[in-house]
């Protein structure tokens, strides 16, 4: 555990170095891009000095690290606003999408995994395995487009894209579902909910497949263990053995997976937000790609990477609490 905590800062530092390295192998000159086509050489030199591009690389790196720890990720070349403000404003939309997707995928994936294990090699198990295999093979952007095609365009059950109709509930946390509940704004809640359905379904499908797979494997492991044999010999009802004793042990592995999945979903939002025009971090990253906004992409990479590292740390700690045997 201690070992993990110690490595947190070097890892984040390494991430900074990696992002800095990538952003400095740019073939195009960002300053020339910023100055425009008609800039004189002096104007470019001035800008270069202003942004610190004229200093030695290691000084630039030190300034970059210092700035980052003070929450300064630079100015977006496109919106001309601080990147940290842009990212912070969009964080709740992405987190809301990710949280709901993790919840849904675990709520469906865990019970289905148990069923697949208990009734292994039955028709139900084979059907569930087919769903798992498909979930892991489908490209999420294509699934998103399929959902749009059927449920939004043809059947018109859900909105095509966006996060909400109108202005949304009063800003408290930035999570529309939570905020609309807090102020009792049912109209906003309904709208936010209906906008969430398709993006969540897209993100949750492969996540559910992974969780199902791991729960199934975990439950199968537990079913063959001695303590289950003992409980069966003691005459415990099968239902209690499965849902209480076996599941608790099987879930230890699943919790690790759910943590990893949270990180993967965070990455998956890039593509899904692009399709559903969901105003989160992912869409910001895609817009930055379109606008060749290097600073913004690097800021996005850094923030997502740091969140990913934090989540992995949290999973390790949680696993240590749930399973004291695990070495940390």
């Amino acid at each position, binding site marked *: 555990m201690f070992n993990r905590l110690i490595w947190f800062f070097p890892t984040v530092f390494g991430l900074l170095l990696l992002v800095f390295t990538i952003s400095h192998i740019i073939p195009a000159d960002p300053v020339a891009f910023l100055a425009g086509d008609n800039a004189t050489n002096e104007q470019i030199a001035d800008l270069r000095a202003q942004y610190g591009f004229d200093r030695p690389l290691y000084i630039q790196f030190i300034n970059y690290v210092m700035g980052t720890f003070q929450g300064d990720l630079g100015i977006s070349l496109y919106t001309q606003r601080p990147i940290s403000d842009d990212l912070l404003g969009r964080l709740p939309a992405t987190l809301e999408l990710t949280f709901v997707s993790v919840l849904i995928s675990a709520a469906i994936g865990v019970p289905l995994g148990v069923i697949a294990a208990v009734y292994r090699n039955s028709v139900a198990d084979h059907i569930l395995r087919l769903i798992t295999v498909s979930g892991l093979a489908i490209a999420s952007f294509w699934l998103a487009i399929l959902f749009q095609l059927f449920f939004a365009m043809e059947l018109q059950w859900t909105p095509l894209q966006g996060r909400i109709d109108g202005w949304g509930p009063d800003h408290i946390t930035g999570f529309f579902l939570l905020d609309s509940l807090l102020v009792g704004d049912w109209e906003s809640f309904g709208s936010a909910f209906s906008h969430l359905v398709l993006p969540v379904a897209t993100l949750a499908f492969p996540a559910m497949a992974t969780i199902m797979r791991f729960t199934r494997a975990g439950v199968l492991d537990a079913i063959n263990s001695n303590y289950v044999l003992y409980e069966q010999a003691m005459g415990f009802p099968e239902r209690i053995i499965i849902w209480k004793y076996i599941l608790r042990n099987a879930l230890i592995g699943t919790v690790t997976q759910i943590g990893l999945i949270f990180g993967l979903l*965070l990455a998956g939002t890039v593509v899904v937000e692009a399709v559903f025009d969901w105003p989160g971090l992912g869409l910001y990253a895609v817009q930055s790609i379109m606008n060749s906004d290097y600073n913004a992409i690097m800021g996005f990479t850094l923030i997502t*990477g740091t969140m990913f590292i934090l989540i992995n740390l949290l999973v390790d700690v949680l696993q240590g609490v749930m399973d004291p045997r695990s070495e940390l």
Partner: protein
Amino acid sequence: MFETIKFLIKKLAQDRTAAIGVFLILSLILIAIFAPILATHPADITEFHPPERLQGPSSEHYFGTDRMGSDIYSRLLYGARITIAIALIAISVSVVIGVPIGLLAGYYRNWVSDALMRVSDIFLAVPQIILAIAIAQTLGPSIQNVILALSATYWPFWTRLVYAETRSALNEPYVEASIALGASPSRVMILHVLPNISSSIIVRTTIGMGGTILTAAALGFLGLGPPPPSPEWGRTIAESREFLPEAWWYAAAPGIAIFLVVMGFNLLGDGLRDILDPRTRRSKGG
């Protein structure tokens, strides 16, 4: 070696799902090789026929035509070449970089091996697609840069795997014996450790192909893949979006192609794992 391959083929043929995987992958390879023969309109990779744009599937155009009036079926076949090239080269580079680093870091126990593992941890700390986006965006959209971005982000998977497997192999009697007999480190690593951990590497590589194809398609979808008029599958799906729901065939064909290919590698990977690593047998307990 020959015996091993014969054993593998026999086992794979018995495993129905793995056999489906092999069939799908072989189809992809054959389609990529014979694309010029199979294609009905091979010139449509670069040629446009605007009057024929956005036609539905017909006997002339099996999968319809795209926004430029080009034949989607023919472009799909040529897209298979891009998919194979990207995945095969990116995965090979990742294996060639990742495996030796993992072997060295696993065999030696000093600060160099710690440092190597920390570097791979940092790469693993960022989701692959995010890092690939950052690199591909910086370098500009092209096939070479997609391959570079994917190789740069995927190698640590093999380093991690090989490191862990090497560490546990070092405790095995056969490795201890060869060290005691005076075998040099390179001899132990290449002749004793590597052959015994190769099955894990093969399984990881097969499943990695599927993941790489998905990531490459996502990069193409985001506009970071090979530029138009490339028939890359992810880009084709992105192009189709403004013509939905009317031109449904435009998005359907490349999406199904990606799905089948990734499915093929995943099924084969699962099957290989069952055969090569009895500890994680899928049908365990029943």
